[in-house]
């Protein structure tokens, strides 16, 4: 019994945290307390992961998949959640005209959902995790209720994710109809009959929606732009980690083969994502939208490594998603530390960053590192990540995809560089520019500097991260 408890510890801690937060809210509304509980919960859950792994047991084999891989991704989700939590704490200032305490709750709830999804062993858990996460995220998006944009983004996300949920659900239903099971294995083992293929297509479309790849990318920029910065960071990062975790789990299952037709479908999606994402971002004036489009392209890159499979492909996927998480949270973090939930909008216009180099050189440097990382230029970590993708592509001889990667990277460079340029411009005489007036608390500086240090440090000495990931993901 004890070992079972030990193995399920992270999940239990997380669930308990949610309960504790609800209880705390019921007793006394205090932002500090809720944040404290949330942070403690997330940290405890993270710490308990190695301990849980040591148990080498699985109390719910039909529901949860508590392998090192899955728990590794879960850990990544927890850390990413923690980072966004810190950003949210800075973002939701005291002078906010609305209660702040529910936000951490929603965040932890979404994290619980993502955790469940990443460690799911069958469709039931997967679906429950997915929906827990999605509905909590809608709350996070709509949180600053005075902003029409946030509300609109939430509405769009609700409708579109509802639709995608229905699509996935129908796919799962078809799978269940065809195989009689709600676990993954039978679906993978089944022959290519039309129902199975349709099921796969529908589930794939749902995954595509969450991964925001072309042609399921259409919602991304609007949602990112409308959501408050920490929520956008969350939406941009955590669901993707969870979906990737599931996909890698599926691929690692015995007997799973990627049929050529499926591979070519993914290849087309990857190619379109890279090109369309980068092309759409080209002349954008809104930083969040740029990040949205760029995330479309990045997931396209990631699909290359996924397709390449093999040892280096798998390592590439993991390394890339870690890099992506650090970098994108960092990017939204920069917007976040320059914005406040109480103001009418976030500092998300590229123009808001004008002259950042001259009045906030450190933040500008961090942002430059982030952009370099997104563009895949040394010495930032994104360079090593892109190297991994290219290595995977080259080693698997995916010539067209790799060539597209190069081409679209060049297009991508253009808009990343443009942002850097704007930061290097002479500051405009706009005293009210949010970037120059908002005071950034020390925690904000520490978080951003920490993210910057990760981006630079892992970019120069990637071996440490590789060793760590290798230790976790075998």
């Amino acid at each position, binding site marked *: 019994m004890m070992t079972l408890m030990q193995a399920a510890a992270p999940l239990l801690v997380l669930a308990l945290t949610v309960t504790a937060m609800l209880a705390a809210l019921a007793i006394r509304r205090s932002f500090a307390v809720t944040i404290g509980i949330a942070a403690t919960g997330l940290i405890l859950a993270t710490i308990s992961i190695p301990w849980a792994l040591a148990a080498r047991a699985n109390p719910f084999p039909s529901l949860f998949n508590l392998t090192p891989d899955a728990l590794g991704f879960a850990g990544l989700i927890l850390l990413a959640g923690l980072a966004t939590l810190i950003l949210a704490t800075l973002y939701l200032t005291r002078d906010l005209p609305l209660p702040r305490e529910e936000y951490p709750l929603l965040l932890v709830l979404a994290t619980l959902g993502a955790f469940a999804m990443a460690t799911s062993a069958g469709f039931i858990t997967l679906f429950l995790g997915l929906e827990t996460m999605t509905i909590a995220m809608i709350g996070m998006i709509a949180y600053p209720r005075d902003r029409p944009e946030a509300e609109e983004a939430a509405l769009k996300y609700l409708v579109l994710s509802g639709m995608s949920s229905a699509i996935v659900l129908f796919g799962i239903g078809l799978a269940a109809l065809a195989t009689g099971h709600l676990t993954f294995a039978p679906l993978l083992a089944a022959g290519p009959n039309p129902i199975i293929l349709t099921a796969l297509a529908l589930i794939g479309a749902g995954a595509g929606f969450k991964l925001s790849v072309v042609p399921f990318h259409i919602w991304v920029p609007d949602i990112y732009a409308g959501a408050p910065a920490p929520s956008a960071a969350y939406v941009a990062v955590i669901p993707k980690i969870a979906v990737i975790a599931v996909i890698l789990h599926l691929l690692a299952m015995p007997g799973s083969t990627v049929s050529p037709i499926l591979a070519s479908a993914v290849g087309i999606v990857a190619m379109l994502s890279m090109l369309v994402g980068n092309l759409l971002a080209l002349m954008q004036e809104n930083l969040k939208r740029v990040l949205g489009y760029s995330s479309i392209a990045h997931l396209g890159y990631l699909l290359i490594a996924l397709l390449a499979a093999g040892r280096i492909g798998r*390592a590439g996927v993991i390394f890339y998603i870690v890099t992506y998480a650090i970098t994108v949270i960092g990017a939204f973090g920069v917007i976040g530390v320059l914005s406040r939930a109480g103001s009418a909008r976030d500092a998300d216009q590229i123009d808001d960053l004008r002259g950042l*180099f*001259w009045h906030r*050189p450190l933040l500008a440097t961090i942002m430059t590192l982030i952009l*370099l990382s997104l563009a895949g*230029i*040394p*010495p930032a970590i994104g*360079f*090593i990540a892109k*190297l991994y993708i*290219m*290595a995977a592509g*080259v*080693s698997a001889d995916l010539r067209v995809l*790799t*060539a597209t990667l*190069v081409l679209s*990277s*060049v297009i991508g*460079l*253009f808009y990343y*560089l*443009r942002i*850097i*340029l704007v930061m*290097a411009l002479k500051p405009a005489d706009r005293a009210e520019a949010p970037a120059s007036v908002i005071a950034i608390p020390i925690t904000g500086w520490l978080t951003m500097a920490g993210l910057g240090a990760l981006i630079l440090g892992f970019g120069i*000495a*990637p*071996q440490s991260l*590789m*060793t760590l990931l*290798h230790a976790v993901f075998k």
Partner: protein
Amino acid sequence: MILAWLLIIPLLGGLLAWPADRITPMLPRAISLATLLLELGLILPLVHGSGAAILSAPSPITSGRWLATFDASWIPTLGISIRLDLDGLSWLLIVLTTIIGLFAVIVSWREIDHSTGFFHANLLWSLAGSIGVFLALDLFLFFFFWEVMLVPMYFIIAIWGHEHRRRAAIKFFLFTQGSGLLMLLSILALAFLHQRQTGVLTFDYVTLLASQPTGRLGTLIMLGFFIAFLVKLPSFPVHIWLPDTHTEAPTAGSVILASILLKTAGYGLMRFAVPLFTAAAHHIAPIAMALGTISIFYGAILAYGQSDLKKLVAYSSISHMGFVLIGIYSFNALAWQGAVILMIAHGVSTGALFITVGSIQHRLHTRDLTRMGGLWTDLPRLSSFGTFFVVASMGLPGLGNFVGEFLILRGVYAVSPTIAILAAIGLIPAALYSLIAIQRAFHGEANAKRGTHDFGTRETAMMLALGAAVIWLGIDPQPVLKIAAPSIAVLLPITHAAAIPATRRGT
């Protein structure tokens, strides 16, 4: 370890210089100067003493006889290590880098007056990147430095450049980075090919030299390197980033770009693109030579047509680098020596020309030739130095550029008289644009009295030093040839030995 210091010193210097302008704007300049002097003090002694002995006896590249060497693990997972090795060729180019770097610092002493700290940090980092390029013998590390030197350069252009700097900076970066990615693809392909052959994943240059991919795949992989270097060189038709970039960059940026960054391409061709793929390199030699010849003429003719003095110099660089390209792809030791000399001489003379143009712009606030004329009347010292360096870059015998051009032509003639003679004919338009530049800038009627000051002591001393270097290269190039000789003797035989059977296999 000394090689690591060669990289660490400018990196640290940059880190120091960055915040130093909060104390006084002078401090970053002083830090840069001190850093580069220290660097020079480190690098210069390496060819003496035991270095001289190593240089006197060429030995196979696998024997590991280097002037200095450094090896440390970096990313063992992917077989990447920090392998730095110094041979004569690298030494020459690093010395060039450091010295030109010094001049870049001096030239920006007055020109750069805001955020000197960040400027000098970028300057030093860019130099560190180039030094890394010249030292790295791990392909991935090489690529790392190749990219690293671009980013600071991008900032230098984008922040301290002239009116259209943003466009120019982006163009510069897109071209060099885009072609760089192709090279990365090739590096990876080469490494994985080697892994498939031997089971070992490594990016080590010396190990990969043995790989020598042939056939279509070999050509494909080689093309990645070739294109990247062609863009950086630059050669027709991928030269178009250069004129814009030069025009918009601040003087120090132009100087570094022309004198150092372009040289990394020539170095890359000699060190990587040719020896790693000897069969493919021979395969593509006619195309390379044709491109080189076209570049010679194209650059010269366009230089003649420019009314922007800086653009004129930029196009002339394309023409000069055409010589380097045909020299390298003649696979002839004399031509390679010529290419080395020409790269160094071009570095010095074109650097000096950019300093001259920068000085003119600083005084007249224009680079437009139609608004110059008669400068000799007002600025005799500037004009005479300008004329001297124009004449030097035109290839006047007795000055450095001529030695390079002659050796290249001599080497190429032995392989292909047609190309050699065509290239020699390219010296005629060179004279045309050089003389028209002198005429339009320095000669003619001084249409308005410009109450400007001539070169001061700082600038005169700088130009004298550069001029002395050009003359020295012209009348006594032997020391340089001697230092480069062992490297060429090592790199070229690989080319010859492997090429003959390989071309047979290839056809």
